[in-house]
């Protein structure tokens, strides 16, 4: 038994840690595209903002899609509630609130990440420093994850934390795919131009999968393989199937512990069996965009149901 507020704090702490890192990853992929492509870098930055779900708020503030503007907005702007800095701050506030539920190592790693990122992101980032800043963000979140996995007891506290992580991650991966779904469609994409290669690599890079892809498939990028990897691969830690495997597992632990089934259990079950039965061909035949839009909607619904079923909304 946990306080609803504690479960809520754990869930959002982990969603925001995940988000802080995802923002850095998106900027990283955008930066790579901007560096390797000669034209329409602004289009690329636009899709980065779309994936981040921040394009509307960005436009209220800036008129130009440049590396400096976008990275500033996604990494350090505290008026953007999803920026890395805002996310890490929200994560820490939640951690402070649920401090009694965390190991000392976990709390300290979050506190230290907050302190060091606050220092690093205090001033606008010089473009030359951007790669090292992105590295530092990923390192800090990796340290948090490391102390979390290394020291936390596998109980309900762990379960609610993991639910936050995987709901956020699934949402992130689905959005990245959805923003770029048109470059994956066979009709347009199978032209094999270098331009498409960059696009595909960018997708993989934004989920840190550009190297592991080659281990699983082959050196050549194929849109169906990329989609298969990010949607259906059970071993790929950011794929939708992977996220749902763990969401389902942790929800099962909770229902076993509490002896109670809720609406969220039915929802996770449905999505999981849909993913299990799915083949990438079917998904493409029925429409990739439709598939992803449905998935994002269901995933949001799952988050709401978890909050309601465990009384922390």
């Amino acid at each position: 038994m946990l306080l609803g507020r504690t479960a809520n704090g754990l869930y959002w702490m982990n969603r925001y840690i995940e988000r802080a890192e995802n923002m850095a990853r998106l900027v990283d992929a955008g930066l790579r595209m901007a560096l390797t492509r000669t034209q329409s870098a602004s289009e690329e930055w636009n899709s980065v903002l779309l994936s981040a779900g921040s394009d509307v708020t960005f436009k209220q503030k800036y008129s130009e899609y440049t590396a400096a503007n976008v990275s500033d907005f996604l990494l350090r702007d505290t008026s953007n509630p999803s920026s890395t800095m805002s996310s890490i701050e929200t994560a820490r506030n939640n951690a402070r609130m649920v401090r009694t539920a965390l190991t000392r190592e976990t709390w300290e790693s979050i506190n230290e990440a907050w302190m060091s990122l606050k220092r690093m992101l205090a001033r606008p980032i010089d473009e030359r420093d951007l790669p090292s800043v992105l590295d530092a963000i990923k390192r800090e979140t990796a340290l948090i994850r490391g102390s979390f996995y290394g020291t936390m007891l596998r109980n309900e506290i762990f379960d609610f934390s993991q639910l936050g992580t995987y709901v956020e991650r699934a949402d992130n991966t689905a959005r990245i795919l959805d923003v770029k779904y048109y470059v994956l469609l066979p009709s347009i994409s199978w032209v094999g131009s270098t331009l498409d290669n960059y696009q595909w690599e960018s997708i993989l890079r934004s989920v840190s999968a550009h190297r592991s892809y080659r281990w699983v498939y082959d050196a050549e990028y194929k849109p169906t393989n990329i989609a298969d990897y990010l949607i259906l691969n059970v071993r790929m830690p950011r794929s939708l199937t992977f996220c749902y495997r763990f969401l389902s597992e942790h929800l099962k632990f909770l229902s076993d512990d509490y002896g109670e089934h809720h609406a969220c259990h039915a929802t996770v079950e449905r999505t999981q069996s849909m993913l299990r039965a799915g083949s990438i061909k079917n998904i493409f035949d029925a429409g990739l965009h439709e598939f992803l839009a449905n998935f994002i909607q269901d995933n949001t619904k799952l988050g709401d149901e978890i909050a309601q079923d465990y009384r922390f909304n």
Partner: protein
Amino acid sequence: MRLAAFDEMLPEVSGLRRPYSAYDRWLKEQDPARLTEKMQDAERVFRKTGITFAVYGEQEASERLIPFDIVPRIISGNEWRRLTQGIEQRVQALNAFLDDIYHRQEILRAGRVPRDLIAKNEAFLPEMIGVRPPAGVYTHIIGVDIVRISEDEFYVLEDNARTPSGVSYMLENRETMMQLFPELFQKIKVRPVENYPQLLRQSLAAVRPQSTKGAPTIAVLTPGSFNSAYFEHAFLADQMGVQLVEGQDLRVVDGHVAMRTTEGYKQIDVLYRRVDDSYLDPLTFRPDSALGIPGIMDVYRAGNITIANAPGTGIADDKAIYSYMPEIIEFYTGRKAILGNIPTWRCSELDSLKYVLEHIHELVIKEVHGSGGYGMLVGPAATKKECEAFAKKLAAKPSNYIAQPTLALSTCPILTEKGLAPRHVDLRPYVLVSDRIQIVPGGLTRVALKEGSLVVNSSQGGGTKDTWVLDD
């Protein structure tokens, strides 16, 4: 200003005092450089564990630490026995006084305490009249501030009968000392304080409402993570293994206070609250407060929850009441107070006011409702101008002030860059009241780090020391 003070380790007259002899032998064998290193280690330990007292604000990355001195304050078994007798008597009287004030008010009828002092006091809660808390205990957790003047003279400076803080420092100070100097604890038998959280839990469980079935559910109520003592609230909840709740987690369900959990509402039987009375129940006290639990006072009056400490206990530790403590103790225990008060002038009384105004440069003057060392004047340390300014404030609202002689608080050595140097100290032992009274052998020793300073409050540059009660 320098006062000739009694040093607890090395008084000028009699030489090294016995409680310190074993420690002194050990100290003489130590390399000064190693001690300085240990001092830095101590600070690192505190930072790492995050033992902080001030909220690190939104803009502040650093947390404020209370400075810790590595020389222990040592109390002999005999001295402690005397202190505990005095404290027990005092705590009994405090609870008897509270019960009386909220029921028959015999002490007012007997004319021993003026009626006005109670009726016009903000700390008096009319809502508590006729309410008898579970097990008849009003103040469950008390921190009695004690000062020493000489070998045999101890005085009570203040009774903290509402929500005394600082006990987490007592525990962490000991923990730190054991980490730094394990060999010392092998050589010297120091009575343990580590079991305080267990004792607190048992003590709270013992005062559960009569209607409680089975083991009671206990929770610590905090104003939230931005409160300056949040660390301590989280620490105690953690150590006791109970929930740390905020007002927003609680509501009244079927005549009981319940917390909202992942498995629905769960009844709470005992609430160790670390919020002020006025924030407990917006229906009863402050309609504008978002911190409280609407209706908790009705549950309380029905005897379905224990609130520790009880609402309205502030009337017993008010600074204006303090000056009546000797009378209060005698009235309820039938004996003279074992631990005396510091002589106190109530400025509300004309003769006293006259005396205080004439002797302002010799006295310590405090606000009746002040705390934390704010709003006070230390006459001998103040400039003429400060004294004059304060005299004006005092004359304008005399009933707001009390005055006490400037006492030469005992000193205890601290480790400075130039070796040991005496600094003024006080002592706050922690008392738990349930069906019995328990006093943890030790407490929080606060020390004024500035040479000659008498202000030990952490908000004003005070530090802390580990406090040893010898098992001798």
